[in-house]
């Protein structure tokens, strides 16, 4: 399939990328290309220009800053899935990255491109919302940091301005007495999440002190399941208490669930509770004792 005509620019640095964005209004940023290029080939997206940031070294790599993992926006899913640091500090993220698309997609697709695209059925956004991650964004007005939960605003909508570039994702490392997991019901064709559920559970001695639970694939953006979280609080974690808490997820989803020919809204609502339950159970299971 052939995309419509566009101009191509390669940025050597973040500054150059900003200059190119400014001088080419309507330009789109290109990193791994696994969200943008399919849309362009189907002619569903037809940017007049593409600014390729794929070779900007300062946007790559995984490092620690105290208790926070800093993941450069150009880090690929494959790098995240196979990183020892991520496995240790953010196992749910490693798990989610390993679920993205297939190996070829993971080798090219980047965390920055993935979250900027903000597909509600994507895996990483759900985990990052649950993890309490934040995003570093650089624009002409300087650098700002935004919470993942505020970054995702709607169906493929983020708080990124047209002249801003996401440069890094900051993920707090899991703590003592905390366990995390991501479970997913993949669409058999697209491999996107029909339901994705991420849970971070802190439970010293088996009693839940704090829980952060997020779901994706259900409403136009990944959301925290506040009702589930509060139902878990102070509970001795058992299959029964987890199931009861997970069943609350319906309250968090509202009335406008996504649905398609593969899985209706009604069905997704029902299985969301199952996947939330499984995510919490898996997270609780992983707590380092």
């Amino acid at each position: 399939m052939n995309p419509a005509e566009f101009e191509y620019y390669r940025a050597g640095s973040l500054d150059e990328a900003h200059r190119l964005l400014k001088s080419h209004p309507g330009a789109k940023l290109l990193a791994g290309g696994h969200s943008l290029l399919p849309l362009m080939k189907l002619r569903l997206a037809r940017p007049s220009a593409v600014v390729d940031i794929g070779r900007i070294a300062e946007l790559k790599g995984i490092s620690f800053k105290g208790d926070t993992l800093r993941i450069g926006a150009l880090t690929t899913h494959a790098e995240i899935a196979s990183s020892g640091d991520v496995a240790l500090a953010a196992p749910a993220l490693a798990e989610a990255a390993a679920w993205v698309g297939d190996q070829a997609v993971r080798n090219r697709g980047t965390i920055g491109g993935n979250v900027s695209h903000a597909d509600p059925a994507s895996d990483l956004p759900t985990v990052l919302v649950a993890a309490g991650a934040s995003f570093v964004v650089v624009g002409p007005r300087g650098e700002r940091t935004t919470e993942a939960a505020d970054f995702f605003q709607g169906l493929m909508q983020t708080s990124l301005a047209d002249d801003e570039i996401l440069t890094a994702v900051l993920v707090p490392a899991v703590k003592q007495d905390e366990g995390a997991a991501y479970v997913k019901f993949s669409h058999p064709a697209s491999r996107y999440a029909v339901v994705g559920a991420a849970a971070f559970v802190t439970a010293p001695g088996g009693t839940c002190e704090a829980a952060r639970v997020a779901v994706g694939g259900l409403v136009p953006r990944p959301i925290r399941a506040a009702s589930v979280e509060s139902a878990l609080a102070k509970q001795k974690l058992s299959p029964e208490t987890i199931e009861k808490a997970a069943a609350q997820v319906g309250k968090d989803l509202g009335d406008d669930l996504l649905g398609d020919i593969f899985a209706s809204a009604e069905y997704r609502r029902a299985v969301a509770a199952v996947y939330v339950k499984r995510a919490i159970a898996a997270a609780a299971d992983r707590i380092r004792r």
Partner: protein
Amino acid sequence: MSTTVTTAAAPRVFGSGIRRREDPRLVTGTARYTDDITLPGMVHAAILRSPHAHARIRKIDTARAKASPGVLAVYTAPDIEGHLKPIPCLWLVPNTDLKIGTYSPLATDTVRYVGDCVAVVVGETSYQAYDALELIDVDYEPLPAIIDPEKAAGPGAPQVHADIANNQAFHWTVAGGDVDAAFKSAEIVVKDRIIQQRLIPTAMETRSAVAQYVPATGELTLWNTTQNPHIVRFACSVVTGIPEDRLRVIAPEVGGGFGSKIAQYPGEFLAVFCSKKLGRPVKWTESRSENYQATTHGRDHIQDVELAATRDGRITGLRCTVWAGMGAYLSTAAPGIPTILHGLMLSGPYQIPAVKEDVYGIYTNATPVEAYRGAGRPEATYMLERLIDRLARELQMDPADVRRKNLIPRFDNGFDVVTGLKYDSGNYEGALSAALDRVKYKELRAEQARLRKEKKYIGIGVTTYVEICGLGPSQVAGAVGFQGGLWESAIVRFHPTGKVNVFIGASPHGQGEETTFAQIVSDELGVSVEDVKVVHGDTDVTPMGWGTYGSRTTAVGGAALAIATRKIKDKAKALTAHLLEAATEDIDYAGGKFFVKGSPDQFKTIQDIALLANIAWNLPQGMEAGLEATTFYDPPNFSYPFGSHVAVVEIDAETGRTTLKRYVAVDDCGPQINPVIVEGQVHGGVVQGIGQALWEECVYDENGQLLTGTLADYAVPRADQLPDIEVLSTVTPSPNHPLGVKGIGEAGTIASTATVYNAVIDALAPFGVKGLRMPLTPERVWRAIQEGQKGA
């Protein structure tokens, strides 16, 4: 594994799983497909396709497109008039009141499905051609569309072709025995309505053509991704008027077909037309989106079926009515699929004394259907196997026992079936026992009962099947309206150095005959496998042949080859006799050597003979030079492979998701030339059939818009969804084939859909589920469980 027949002297290469010689070029990415071909001066065509399922074309304005940069031409229907004839349907099933709707390469005044061709653009680059498509202004008057074949046959339905009443393309009937009496006296009748959902074949390589017309000579070379280049040559000659002798069709590497590349399409003929008009080579390659819209689909039946039986489980009759959706036009072989290849196999491997089927072929505003792996037989096997499980449930009998009770007993040379066919050889009971033994069936049932108490739901699906392939005797082809023969050909040519080229009329595209055919030659004539190269897919080089489909290449073409090698052997004997001053009938052949009986020390090898025959210094009087033989082989019967498959699934009752735990395939395709290739064919076939059971469905909305138009919507199977497939076999030679072999390309698909379906329904028995529509998506299964729990 149980072996019903063993061959005497074990051959050396026949039966060994040597590596496929096709694979190095495939796995290293150096194979050349049609789209890899680039010619000097080549330009690119792109096709404007209808966005409507049904609409009248009021006006087409191509002015803006013609003025677009790099555009050489834009053609619409009036431009091709007198140059391109309608695409022909080539299977005119008789006694069916067949009505063929005109299938014009470019729509004249009406478009009939989303994807119907409206205009073609030729650009210097494919980008320029695609850009110009957006500049063609078409004024459509949308008309009501119809997708459901049963509704399309009903009163008041939109008419796909104005001159064809009730959208009925044909009505075909098969009957044997007294079916009315069978149902009148039945002790039990089970009924079912079955939807054989429409499927999209999804070959890895989309369709493509490169047409090079040379005005100075009037010669056309057409590179085309096809399963049957000789049929393309014939059809191309009919459609374009270029004489067959000036027409060369080359099928380079072909990346899968599964039936979709049997058909003749507008795309390649439009490429020929454009090349002829412009005097430049023209390439046309469809995108995946176009492939999903406009390359043929498969299945699409609505089946009303009933089975009559006695209370002890003996099947006494089968009666059904089928509405077969044909899509907007009759594709090349389409009418033969739901009739000859479906209805004649109604009774499967069972002794059913009375059957009757009515098949209505119905036009709809959907993509034309064509053969799709199994082609008619999966639809027949599924119907029967689903009903037998239902019968077993009603009678509270074990489904394997019901099958055993009805199977045709072992036969080695012909069994007359109620539909009029004569099966070649079979040992159905043997295959069933082998499959059940492999899974330890009794223990497995006990395990299932135990797990149910723990609220774990595993299901066991068992099927036995027989299929018809190795198409087929040409006389029968003629009798059933196939507009061609179904024989195959082979040339075996020895070069002076003893190396061999084999030229075949069939056109393998993934089935591995470059390897297996070399194995045949190697064994028959005592040459090394490495010394044999098989050439196919070029009509200027190979002898005529009818193509690769219907699991016929080895079953028919392999027989042609075996006979050609025997002709070579005869000539070699005659020449040896001359050289050793003996009588021809005294010459023996063994281990690659020709010698006088009793004197094996004095011999000629086939390589000696190849040299001496080619230089021809000393030939017996009357013997022609060269060592070459040609055979045109017309089989005396079809081939009827069979087997028994078992699937074990587990259902997640909370979500309705199905996990395949085990899959056992016992198939009998006679003696296996290369068991590794057989296993590969079974793997691929099984997986494609599982796809239909669990994941695949081509969905249109009520306006005829394709909702599963990309690989992100249409779910083909992937490796991580599948267990290791346990492939076993029994060996029952065909009495008709010189090597005893039967086809194996489609067997897996024919068995596996029903096997996995039955396993899932079996797992859901505790919830009172009797039947579900395929594919068995998690939501469908989950809803059935919810309903069952409500009822409980």
